[in-house]
């Protein structure tokens, strides 16, 4: 477990203040997309060894959703960005 997360709003905080909300790389399909596409989006997850992008929520702090890029093997944290900023960049 990566024990210290640098929240862009609150500064360096212990990971106990956060809640992990899962893979941030999956993209929600269109409402009319096929059942297979929805099944893939809702249920199927990879379990990567290494660099991974995840949604983290700072529940005990600013309560914002964040996108944390970290290594699942070494626990290094590469970047932490506000979820809203990431969504805007992606045009969502």
């Amino acid at each position, binding site marked *: 477990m990566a024990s210290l997360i640098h929240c862009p*709003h*609150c500064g360096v*905080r212990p990971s106990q203040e956060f809640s992990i909300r899962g893979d941030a790389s999956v993209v929600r399909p269109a409402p009319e997309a096929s059942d297979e596409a929805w099944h893939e989006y809702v249920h199927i997850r990879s379990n990567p060894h290494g660099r991974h992008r995840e949604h983290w929520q700072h529940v*005990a*702090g*600013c309560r*914002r959703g964040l996108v944390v890029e970290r290594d699942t093997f070494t626990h290094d944290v590469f970047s932490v960005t506000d979820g809203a900023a990431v969504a805007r960049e992606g045009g969502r």
Partner: protein
Amino acid sequence: MTKTYISRHPLEGRIPLEPGIRAVDHLEVPRRQAIVTVMAADGEDTAVAAVLATMSEPSLRCVGPGEWLVVSQSETPEGLQRSLALVLAETAYVLDQSDGRIVLRLSGPNVRRILAKGVAIDLHPSVFGLGAASNLLCGHVNVNLARTGENEFELIVMRSLAESLFDDLRLMGREFDLSADFSG
């Protein structure tokens, strides 16, 4: 049938009626306090922050981006909410929290050492200076911690968790003979 509701402070059973000897490190519990949440509407963050910065008496507690707690000793909860709603109008959502939150004020030369037992952030004045405030965990309890003086901190906690946090703080302060009493 009419029912009379009596407002009761959640720490009334915890703090003895007779005030004991006040130690140098003291935990003060204000009986009444107006606490209001202000949440900026989408895209209005800077405009709301600018308006709040111009207000004189009530103190401002940062919660997250575009969200604040406004605390006032002198104003009534209704009055504070009304005046904020009037000033901020359409740019923010204003909600009274006075009945749901409790303020605990820690002061004394050893407060930083007391708080360090439960709080995981750096409380040195160069990092967490006067007027700084943030939501964080104290033990397992969510609190809003603010520095209100060189050796003074205020914790705002949910009413239902106030007793638990109070007990924790008493335990954290036992080494320094922390005293506790109501004020106001």
